């Protein structure tokens, strides 16, 4: 059901008026409470996938392709099978059915069938008594390859497709092309007072969650297969296993334990999940596979490199007239979420600013590299970088304050974007105000001396979308509640807690709704046998959708609880309030009952107590092909100000501070929201300065390790200031929207803009390495006498 009507007069928190920003009416929501799983994690008790060991368990390893593009002519595992301690070897022939997280583009095999498409593509898997034996067996497998031309350059893949990377495709090596135009862009640009046109480049980066992927499968004697996996999409893994293994879904159980970080890197079904399942079926023993860090880099699904061309026009007073984008997306070897990525690269740019006209033409091409996929801020971080830098270029041309040009183009709340997306609450102006004030923008910008600067950028992001990856009319999120006579409520949710705290969020909602203490709630999550379906932790959908489903379930139960108490007290139900582990009579302070008594009373009256709840988005999206992709029930908004310091002699850019203002609707737990905001900003700044998922001239990852792929340490991370803005969304659970992905977006363009403020150079090609800074400085100095600063906007009119 739609959440639209949920927060009317029946709201459980008393007299709060809709839209109220006050948290005083809540007992649980809005407070910086502990997480459900914090202490178990802090004490080392929390179990992650590799922490499980089952009796008789085998260990599995993967043989991988050393070629970026080759035909697999022959795989001979006979010598490996002969090695003592080896129980089974499987190859592509064992699981020939293709899968893909997007059902329209199933182009992956668990193990290569016929072809390998990047260095690291899985070819065979071995199950053995121990890891050493499995590794030894890998060296005994003989594979004969016919090496094919490897596409490492996306521009080449765009125009050449002989040999194709994927056969049977109509458009050669083009994975997806989306061209959408809203309004007359060319006319709008022609009529603009000022136009800026430029090229931008976003490099590849990866998630690098600290936990490597791990999966463990076990098959019972009666044929029920259980998979414990480090996944953020239990439900899609369940579906994919059933398809590839040709098993009825009810014979498969998928469980996600504690997850050591994901960020989108565990939101595809992965080779190891199919391999351990198949090997468990073949051997009749539990089988575990833990990837090495190097293998995680090959599995990738990280941020797509993009070449972006933008042309934007504005009036003399800084109002945008049109935006025209052409984007080339380097997809790597498989589709993954690529169809969605291609849409997102254009569809998600149409806020928080009003675009009178807009066009984008995005092409994703296949290359013989590890497959790209969804990384935090899927598909929209790259265009956001380009556009927010371009907006600063426009402001510069018009001699406008960069915050002012953003204010002037604000789209407003409760409006519709140029591409037909419905926008509800929108706290972007408050975000701008917050970072402007906290950073001392007015007093400090442009006055910090050469080498030090402030930059701003804004963004918007989705709180889930109404596009489930496979078309169906069923709920996107479901919740089941079980009430126990002991006073305990057990919540069953398919939602995947990947460290973002979604299990805790569910507990906060249930405690608030049923007036319980937090300790009275247990959450059972992400187990396909036990929990109702939730689509998974992606697209920043969990708080919004699972939160609303939880409210839905609780309201049904609360009605029963209140009815039972009212009957007992022989009073009007409106006098009964459930709060803090008690039922109280709001007109008679002397009368109260503990929740244990309430539960028992209700169970006597109504029978065993439980309820289900669900959430589905309302109908959303533009009326055109692809119009529902990126259509969200609510959008979050963010503004950053970044303060940087550049050593002009070494070119090293240091971020001194970052102020992150984020409109999350309502912070159900401000401490957790702030953690998401700070973690997002950290990750964005890391991409801007340090991280690079880079391939060498052989098509081999140049440094697949946490030594060479440089995650910032505690001395490399700036002081981060989270400024929570609450716009109270009418449809979010208690007004909440997402906070996990949106706050990453502005950090990168804000840094580029800060560097411009510091030194007058525009960095448009990521990452901002010291070498690039020095080169830009040299160029700026060469041009400086003629045209200070403005000369650097080579592309501008």
């Amino acid at each position: 059901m739609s959440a639209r009507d949920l927060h009317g007069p029946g709201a459980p928190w008393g007299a709060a008026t809709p839209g109220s920003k006050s948290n005083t009416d809540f007992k649980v929501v809005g407070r910086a409470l502990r997480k459900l799983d914090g202490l178990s994690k802090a004490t080392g008790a929390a179990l992650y996938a590799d922490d499980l060991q089952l009796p008789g368990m085998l260990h599995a390893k993967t043989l991988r392709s050393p070629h970026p593009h080759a035909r697999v002519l022959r795989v001979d595992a006979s010598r490996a099978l002969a090695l003592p301690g080896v129980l089974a070897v499987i190859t592509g022939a064992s699981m020939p059915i293709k899968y893909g997280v997007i059902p329209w583009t199933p182009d992956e095999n668990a193990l290569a069938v016929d072809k390998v498409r990047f260095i690291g593509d899985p070819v065979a898997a071995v199950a053995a008594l121990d890891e050493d034996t499995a590794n030894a067996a890998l060296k005994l497998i003989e594979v004969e390859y016919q090496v094919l031309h490897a596409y490492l350059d996306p521009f080449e893949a765009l125009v050449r497709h002989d040999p194709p990377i994927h056969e049977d495709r109509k458009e050669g090596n083009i994975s997806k092309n989306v061209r959408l135009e809203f309004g007359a862009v060319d006319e709008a640009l022609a009529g603009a007072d000022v136009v800026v046109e430029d090229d931008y480049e976003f490099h590849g980066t990866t998630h690098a969650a600290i936990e490597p992927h791990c999966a463990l499968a076990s098959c019972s004697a009666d044929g029920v297969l259980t998979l414990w996996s480090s996944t953020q999409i239990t439900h899609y893994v369940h579906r994919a296993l059933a398809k590839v293994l040709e098993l009825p879904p009810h014979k498969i159980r998928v469980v996600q334990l504690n997850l050591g970080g994901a960020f989108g890197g565990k939101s595809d079904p992965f080779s190891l999940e199919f391999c351990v399942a198949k090997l468990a079926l073949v051997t009749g023993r539990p089988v575990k596979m833990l990837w090495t860090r190097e293998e995680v880099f090959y599995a990738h699904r990280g941020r797509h490199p993009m070449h972006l061309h933008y042309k934007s026009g504005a009036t003399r007073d800084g109002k945008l007239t049109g935006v025209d984008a052409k984007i080339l997306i380097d997809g790597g070897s498989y589709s993954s979420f690529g169809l969605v990525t291609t849409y997102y690269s254009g569809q998600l740019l149409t806020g928080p600013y009003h675009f009178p006209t807009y066009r984008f033409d995005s092409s994703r091409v296949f290359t013989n590299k590890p497959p790209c996929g969804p990384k935090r801020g899927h598909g929209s971080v790259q265009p956001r970088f380009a556009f927010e830098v371009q907006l600063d270029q426009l402001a510069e041309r018009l001699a406008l304050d960069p915050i002012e040009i953003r204010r002037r183009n604000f789209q407003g709340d409760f409006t519709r974007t140029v591409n037909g997306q419905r926008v509800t609450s929108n706290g972007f102006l408050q975000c701008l105000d917050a970072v402007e004030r906290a950073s001392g923008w007015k007093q400090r910008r442009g006055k910090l001396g050469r080498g030090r600067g402030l930059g701003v950028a804004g963004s918007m992001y989705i709180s889930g979308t109404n596009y489930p990856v496979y078309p169906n009319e069923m709920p996107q999120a479901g919740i089941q509640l079980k009430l126990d006579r002991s006073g305990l409520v057990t919540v069953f949710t398919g939602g995947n807690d990947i460290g973002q705290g979604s299990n805790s969020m569910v507990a906060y909602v249930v405690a608030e709704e049923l007036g319980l203490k937090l300790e009275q709630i247990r959450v059972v999550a992400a187990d396909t046998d036990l929990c109702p379906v939730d689509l998974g932790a992606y697209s920043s959908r969990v708080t919004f959708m699972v939160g609303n489903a939880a409210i839905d379930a609780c309201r049904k139960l609360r009605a029963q609880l209140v009815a039972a108490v009212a009957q007992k007290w022989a009073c009007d139900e409106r006098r009964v309030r459930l709060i803090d582990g008690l039922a109280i009579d709001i007109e008679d302070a002397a009368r109260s009952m503990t929740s244990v008594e309430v539960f028992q009373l209700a169970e006597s009256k109504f029978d065993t107590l439980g309820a289900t709840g669900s959430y589905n988005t309302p109908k959303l999206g533009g009326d055109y092909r692809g119009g529902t992709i990126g259509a969200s029930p609510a959008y979050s908004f963010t503004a950053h100000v970044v303060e940087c310091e550049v050593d002009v002699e070494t070119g090293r850019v240091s971020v001194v501070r970052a102020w992150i203002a984020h409109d999350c609707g309502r912070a159900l737990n401000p401490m957790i929201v702030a953690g998401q905001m700070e973690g997002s900003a950290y990750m964005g700044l890391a991409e801007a300065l340090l991280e690079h998922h880079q391939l060498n001239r052989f098509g081999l990852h140049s440094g697949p390790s946490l030594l060479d792929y440089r995650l910032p340490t505690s001395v490399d991370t700036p002081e981060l200031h989270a400024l929570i803005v609450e716009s109270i969304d009418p449809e979010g659970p208690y007004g909440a929207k997402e906070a996990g992905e949106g706050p990453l977006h502005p950090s990168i363009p804000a840094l580029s803009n800060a560097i411009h403020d510091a030194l007058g150079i525009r960095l448009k090609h990521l990452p901002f390495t010291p070498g690039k800074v020095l080169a830009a400085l040299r160029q700026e100095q060469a041009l400086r006498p003629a045209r200070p600063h403005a000369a650097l906007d080579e592309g501008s009119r």
Partner: protein
Amino acid sequence: MTVFSFHINGDRVEVAAPDHWTLLEVLRYRLGLTGTKQGCDKGDCGACTVLVDGRPWLACLTLAKSVEGREITTIEGLMPAHRKSGGAGADPLQDAFDRCGALQCGFCQPGMILSARALLARNPRPTRVEIRHALSGNLCRCTGYTQIFEAVESAVAQACGTTTAARAWEAQRERACEREDTP
């Protein structure tokens, strides 16, 4: 396969393991102490940090047999030691990490907490810069480190008898919501 003994969280244990096993493998797969995590395979991330004779040490680069006779502390050892000395609940540092929101996915935190524990043992009142440096061998991918710094500072404050909330969450929210039109 060699049999060797060492002290783990105060208990003497005898372990039989091949010479080429690391301490990390022995802890996780022989002793069932899975609180010590594995993130990078080879000494780059700090998730496997344990204390060897009180010093932060990477278990993934330590040959198991080489700790013969030494005192190892893992994340599982902190709460029992705290209880043994008369405390309640978890170790104060563990509690501070929970209280301050420093645990998101939690995977790096056992190592992080042990690095922080070693810091506080030699420097009970570290500055934020000292905390940054002491934790600079432990990668965290979730938090951006801020809430980790606050957790360590909060534990220090608590040890000094001053109880402070890491941040004034309510006040912060209201500040951010105000609109202010003048500089």
